[in-house]
């Protein structure tokens, strides 16, 4: 017994000593802001004795290691001190807080970003976690159920550095349900298993909390009418419906649940706990009430759609919308054939896709212009299926892209199969080629390419690193499907890319053509390095930079989602031809190597000059390093 007590006392002593170790956490209150918006840099020091304070130095850096601000302060009695920083330059920042007390020193680090257009610095797009937001069951209280879920999701996005995300399901239909009718607080909308069931108050709380954390939100919308509101809209405006060649309405129809759902709204809020409506709450797929895409030859629809998403923003507080199929003419269908498939209510065929391009562009220009006239920062996202007209997927025309893409998020849903054996992009080499070319096209239109929704829990830690490295090196963002967050590599790599987003995702990056890149940059190493498509030049107010993404070649040719750990790439020599810097390399002296897996993610490397060429040698890395050379 005495021995046990002695051990216990010893442990307690050890614990008290350990608790006295100085530790620092620095927490920007916002993940991402626009230029000029303040970020509170909240520093918390732990391990102080009672009444003790710590001297805190807070350093904000951007670019490679350029100091943007420096603050000195002293903690209060609670060990806290805060500084206000207003970034002006765009892209990633790193704040480092160093605390000194009682002869001890501790350091903490965190990243945040600044971007006028939130998409530009966004390295990963949150959204999947917001599926199936369930209403509390009868007898179950709203709190803490929904409140906890809101907190969980905000934390989820924040932890994973997802500075913009999508709230799925609440607005299948911009013509009826972006916001529910006045006086109605609950939602039944969505798409299949993403059916969304929540409340206006819950959504407002969610978007508000996201904003408080420097996270922007968009909502999913479609170009069909659906649900109770959409059905009523179609009743008032049958002239907006589209018909197939035998006269039937193009789209689905389900009157089985319609009367029940109508009564649900009529009897709200008593219906919330009425057992008659429980089947709806439990199982209805409001997509099943989806009745029809619309004939967007009518410009009034674009006006109505704009009014709807503006009202939704005012009611719910979101920042924008992501169209899963926008107001295209003709209706979604064969992208290239004359659109004899679809007719208006009088039997007149819609214009062909080529003729309809101008109308589609008109619609979305009108929608975006009206929305941005009200809210200049209104965010937009669209799908375009990656310019690979595959499996009947809808393809955005150049005219549409030129109209609606600038400043927008573009989602490519074709790439999602990359992790599947039969997918066209299943080989790493194809994935790199196809997606990089597509990202360049998005850049050409001033858009920001995201590839989704692919893979997820199937990707192990190794493939997670590679899929992210290949994506960012290629200039796009990879959005996985379910359960994306449960891997340390995911968070680590997102944080890294967020910090150095300027060198990875800026639309001012100029990617060297493949032939040029391989002529001007040569890489030798202990094992194959993939870099050829990933050589870029960046020129902006900060100067000029050469950016070379070096990826340790995957062991397997194909994307297996279960890749083996590769041998470490060592002695990676990157030799640069002098003409690469023609007319502008007087200061060429050193390079920076950025490595997400290294303890010090940014390190300086000497540049060896010989025979008119420059060589940087990266000692080693496991997956991915980015070599940045100012010139």
């Amino acid at each position, binding site marked *: 017994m005495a021995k046990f007590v002695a051990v216990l006392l010893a442990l307690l002593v050890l614990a008290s000593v350990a608790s006295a170790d100085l530790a620092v956490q620095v927490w920007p209150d916002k993940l991402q802001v626009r230029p000029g918006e303040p970020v509170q840099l909240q520093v918390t020091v732990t391990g102080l004795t009672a009444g003790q304070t710590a001297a805190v130095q807070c350093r904000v850096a951007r670019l490679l290691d350029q100091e943007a601000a420096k603050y000195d302060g002293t903690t209060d009695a609670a060990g806290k001190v805060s500084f206000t920083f207003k970034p002006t330059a765009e892209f990633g920042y790193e704040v480092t807080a160093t605390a000194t007390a009682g002869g001890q020193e501790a350091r903490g680090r965190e990243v945040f970003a600044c971007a006028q257009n939130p998409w530009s610095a966004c390295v990963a797009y949150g959204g999947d976690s917001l599926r199936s937001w369930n209403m509390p069951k009868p007898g179950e209280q709203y709190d803490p159920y929904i409140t906890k879920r809101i907190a969980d999701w905000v934390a989820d996005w924040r932890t994973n550095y997802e500075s913009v995300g999508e709230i799925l399901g609440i607005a299948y239909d911009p013509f009826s349900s972006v916001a529910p009718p006045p006086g109605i607080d609950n939602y039944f909308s969505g798409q299949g298993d993403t059916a969304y069931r929540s409340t206006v108050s819950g959504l407002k709380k969610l978007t508000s909390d996201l904003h408080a954390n420097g996270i922007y939100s968009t909502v999913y919308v479609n170009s069909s009418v659906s649900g109770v509101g959409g059905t009523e809209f179609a009743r008032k405006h*049958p002239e907006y419906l589209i018909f197939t060649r*035998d006269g039937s309405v193009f789209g*689905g129809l389900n*009157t089985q649940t319609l009367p029940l759902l109508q009564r649900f709204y009529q009897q709200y809020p008593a219906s919330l706990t009425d057992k008659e409506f429980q089947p709806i709450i439990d199982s209805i797929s409001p997509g099943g009430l989806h009745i029809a895409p619309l004939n967007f030859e009518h410009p009034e629809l674009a006006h109505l759609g704009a009014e709807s998403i503006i009202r939704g923003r005012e009611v719910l507080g979101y920042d924008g919308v992501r169209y899963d199929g926008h107001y295209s003419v003709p209706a979604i269908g064969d992208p290239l054939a004359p659109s004899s498939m679809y007719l208006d*209510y009088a*039997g007149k065929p819609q214009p062909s896709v080529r003729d309809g391009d101008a109308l589609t562009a008109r619609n979305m220009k009108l929608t975006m212009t009206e929305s941005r006239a009200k809210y200049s920062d209104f965010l937009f996202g669209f799908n375009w299926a990656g310019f690979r007209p595959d499996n009947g997927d809808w393809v955005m025309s150049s005219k549409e892209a030129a109209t609606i893409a600038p400043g927008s998020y573009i989602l490519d849903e074709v790439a999602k199969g990359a992790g599947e054996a039969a997918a066209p992009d299943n080989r790493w080499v194809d994935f790199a080629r196809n997606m990089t070319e597509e990202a360049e096209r998005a850049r050409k239109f001033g858009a920001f390419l995201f590839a989704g929704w692919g893979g997820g829990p199937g990707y192990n830690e190794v493939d997670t690193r590679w899929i992210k490295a290949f994506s960012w090196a290629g200039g796009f963002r990879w959005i996985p499907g379910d359960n994306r967050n449960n891997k340390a590599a995911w968070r680590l790599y997102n944080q890294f890319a967020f910090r150095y987003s300027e060198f990875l995702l800026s639309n001012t990056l100029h990617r060297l053509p493949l032939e040029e890149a391989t002529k001007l940059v040569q890489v030798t190493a202990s094992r194959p390095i993939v870099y050829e498509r990933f050589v870029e030049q960046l020129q902006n107010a900060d100067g000029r930079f050469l950016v070379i993404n070096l990826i340790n070649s995957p062991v397997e040719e194909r994307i297996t989602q279960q890749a083996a750990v590769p041998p470490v790439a060592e002695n990676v020599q990157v030799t640069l031809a002098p003409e690469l810097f023609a007319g502008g390399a007087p200061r060429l002296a050193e390079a920076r190597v950025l490595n997400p897996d290294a303890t010090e993610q940014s390190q300086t490397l000497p540049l060896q000059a010989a025979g008119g060429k420059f060589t940087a040698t990266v000692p080693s890395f496991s997956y991915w390093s980015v070599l940045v050379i100012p010139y």
Partner: protein
Amino acid sequence: MRIRYVSAVTLLLTLAALGGPVSAAPVPAPAPAPLAGENLMPNGSAEEVNAQGQPTGWELANPAAATLTTALGGCAGERCLQVERKADAPADANASLTSPVAPTEAGWYLLSFWFKYDFPPESKPLPLVYVQRRAGADRTGWSGSPMYFYFANNPPSGEWHYAFLVLRQRADQTGLQMRMDSQHMGRQLSLDSVQVRRLNLPATFTLLSTNVIRTSYWGGEWVPDSDAMGGIAWRVTEGLFPPGSKMSGPVRTSELPGLYRATYRLKRQVPGGQPVGLNLSGGGGQTMETILPEDFAENGKYQEFTAYFLYPFGGGTGCNWDWGGKGTYDFDMLKLELIRRVSDHEAWNLLYQGVDADRVLPAPPAAPVVAGAPPRAWLGFGLYTEESGLPKALTAAGFQTNTSAISGDGKLVPTFPGTVGLRLMVLADVPARMLSPVEKFQIMRWVSNGGGLVVSGGPYGFGYGGTPGSFVGDLLPVTEDWAFDLYRLPQPAPVLRPNGEKLGMALWLHRAKPRDKAKVLLTAGGQPFAVGWQYGQGKVLALLGPPLGEPPSPYWENPAWTNQLANLLKWTAGL
């Protein structure tokens, strides 16, 4: 009493003789030229039997595998063919039938037949009939075989079903064969009313509509192609894509019932290989065409092919290509041209010819009116039925009403229960195409026998629902445009009783013209709004003004409308 349905006219004249006068001429004039010529298949109903008890003219290709007999209980005549695959037959031996005759004259033919089997419900699809394009070729699957064959995709066993194929007779083609798949040991397949007719393809015609289909399916890829219509073509490549890859049109093209000419462009890139199969399907039948490698004059150049497609009754069409994994082909497009409409009557007369409808489809009477008992009604609940006021009016009129709603996959739930026991049925913006040909046929006979039918409009009603040309369309007191009949009045107009009383405003109407002897009961904007007539012993009411748009003081919110509608419903039900 058995009635052979030689034609709908005969049917209705016979019914009239049996059940009383038909007050209006309910049957539209058939198309000037019949769709198809005389039946060329002798003994297709197996009424002639040889000394061995087998149907005269029919032979088993492999007598060791099956037995061939006739049996009573055919759907056409008394007997039917019956093939039973022997339980001890070798696993790879098929129970194949050779028909008494195969057409030899080049052209397009309609092969139609009725079938029934006793296979378990979960059996694999049954290859029921195939026609060899090249003598002696083995079947290795549709994609790899120079044959046509038809799969019966497990319709309910124990019942008669019809099927038909549109096939081209070529010089190198052997005769019609039918067979059972070898998996169905000891099971019976019954066939009846097997007919082969040459399609009458009009030498000249007015092109009624054109639909160009390009959409891909799976197992191929788009490739740039300046010769292709849209600058790209869908390519299947040997070694790159698996056998069975598709070059497909959309799952649903939803064409109007009719006779179609299909023109398609294919390019053979690599010589040799296996044939490409085209399948156009819909209305219970298919067009099948096999293109052999030798059908191409040269590589790398588009070649145009033509096929004909008969699509009766409506209900959804589709097309796709199958490819055997050998050779490389490019597909540009398929053009479907409607060259002739086909009404339900016309299709019925062709495909149901010889079928004993009284035995297979007993004629339903209308329920008698019983004092003190509420009359029964069935309501097909469509999109805006609640707004139309029909449910309230049915209640106000004293009906005991069962309702079926439309499900997400476009079916009535519960399924249409049939007309037995009904005084009134209401198709409230429910597409006529949701009813099967037999259901529509039965409704027609039920109305003739005294039932009351109400058809109301909306985005799914009348022309939009496939009513014109259907049996339901024939029942109506109005004639309509073929499909797109909904229009908006120049301005909201009051719904007027004959005495000038206003019932509220309407904005949208179905464009329709009252038939002779029909009575216009209500009007709006000078157009018929509600029209009724007597059909045989029954009555039919067409409500042509759906509750659409936003007119001021809409009629459907007017309390007088419910009373008016209730009276119309009672009139239709003969109460």
